[in-house]
């Protein structure tokens, strides 16, 4: 367990030392979400309708930005080899890295979303559901993304391939995440969507580190 905490600490420390990478993804999220109200104009009914979709799509794309860098630096400087050879199981270390990725990219999105949601005239209840859906959904994005990042490790032009590979897998998260806010606004209640999102997350927590580990071993052979 101490090695998992060590790798989370190490990755957070590295993120602190190269802040620009984390901040780029955040500003991308803020700007993309803010462009829509500016482009569409002050029609609050329309804005309320598109808000969940826009925020979720922007969150997917912002997560994608840093994904290629999840394992690439470790691969390039040989740290990944040392992780594979460490007495600590690789699956645990990979889980630690995914947690660190979520803290640096997913968590800031969750915290920013309610502020950005105000631009779309969402009420407090809808903002609450949005935060809750993102809180369940962004770890899912990090987990699925890690599989893609591991599969495309060391592949030339891996960045584009990564998007093609991962974005379709993000579709369920997008549907249930955006759907939760929409159904709350239309008065149907968000419980069903949130439960499905939580179920997907539970599945990914179990499956994604294992798949990522297998992909990393292949990449290193």
């Amino acid at each position: 367990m101490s090695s998992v905490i060590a790798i989370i600490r190490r990755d957070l420390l590295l993120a602190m030392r190269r802040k620009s990478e984390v901040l780029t993804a955040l500003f991308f999220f803020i700007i993309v979400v803010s462009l829509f109200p500016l482009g569409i104009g002050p029609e609050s009914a329309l804005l309320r309708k598109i808000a969940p979709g826009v925020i979720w799509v922007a969150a997917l794309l912002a997560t994608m930005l840093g994904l290629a860098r999840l394992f690439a630096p470790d691969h390039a400087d040989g740290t990944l080899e040392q992780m594979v050879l460490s007495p600590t199981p690789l699956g645990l270390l990979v889980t630690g890295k995914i947690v660190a990725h979520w803290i640096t990219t997913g968590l800031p999105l969750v915290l920013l979303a309610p502020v950005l949601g105000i631009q779309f005239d969402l009420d407090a209840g809808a903002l609450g559901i949005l935060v809750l859906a993102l809180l369940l959904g962004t770890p899912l994005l990090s987990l699925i993304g890690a599989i893609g990042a591991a599969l495309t490790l060391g592949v030339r032009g891996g960045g584009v391939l990564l998007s093609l590979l991962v974005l379709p897998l993000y579709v369920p998260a997008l549907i249930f995440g955006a759907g939760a806010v929409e159904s709350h606004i239309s008065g149907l209640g968000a419980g069903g969507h949130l439960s499905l999102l939580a179920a997907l997350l539970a599945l990914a927590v179990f499956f994604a580190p294992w798949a990522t580990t297998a992909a990393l071993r292949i990449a290193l052979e």
Partner: protein
Amino acid sequence: MLTATGLSCVRGERRLFAGLDLAVGPGEWLHVQGENGAGKTSLLRILATLSPPAEGEIRWHNETVESLAEDYRRAMLFLGHHGAVKEELTPLENLTLAAQLDGATLDAATALQALERFGLRGREDLAVRFLSAGQKRRVLLARLAVRKASLWILDEPFTALDVKAVAMLSGLIEEHLAEGGMAILTSHQSMPLPNGKVLSI
């Protein structure tokens, strides 16, 4: 005691080596020699269990390394071409975090002592990217000194080191062998160490 029998390695369409046998006992070291591209690094990666051999098996104290898994990885230390050193972190952070990832704890005093031994005193709080190539290698060598492992697998450990650092590393390996450790390394230089065997591929 590390033994390997009938090892062969295939890269793409090419067979790099086949039917390779080797044995390294306590206090012994093996010098792997060969031309560029002969498969020295591939052999070392196979011995480190980073890639599986096409044929043959590797045994550590008479048990296959696959069955030992974590126990073998704990007893073995592999240093490859790449530094495995994080450029953004300081030498001290690199050492302590590398130890923690291995599930060990390393107190700052021991880490500082190792860095001092390799002439990095006064640079322990400087990000590694400000160090020269040779100094980066020295950070790595400090790792050899603090990590407890009985088998060292070193790929070109003398690259980018100055005369003084080469002597330090030779001394370190000699110490390791005297304590009953084992070492397998590739190098284009001749090594003035006792109990050496040469394996040419």
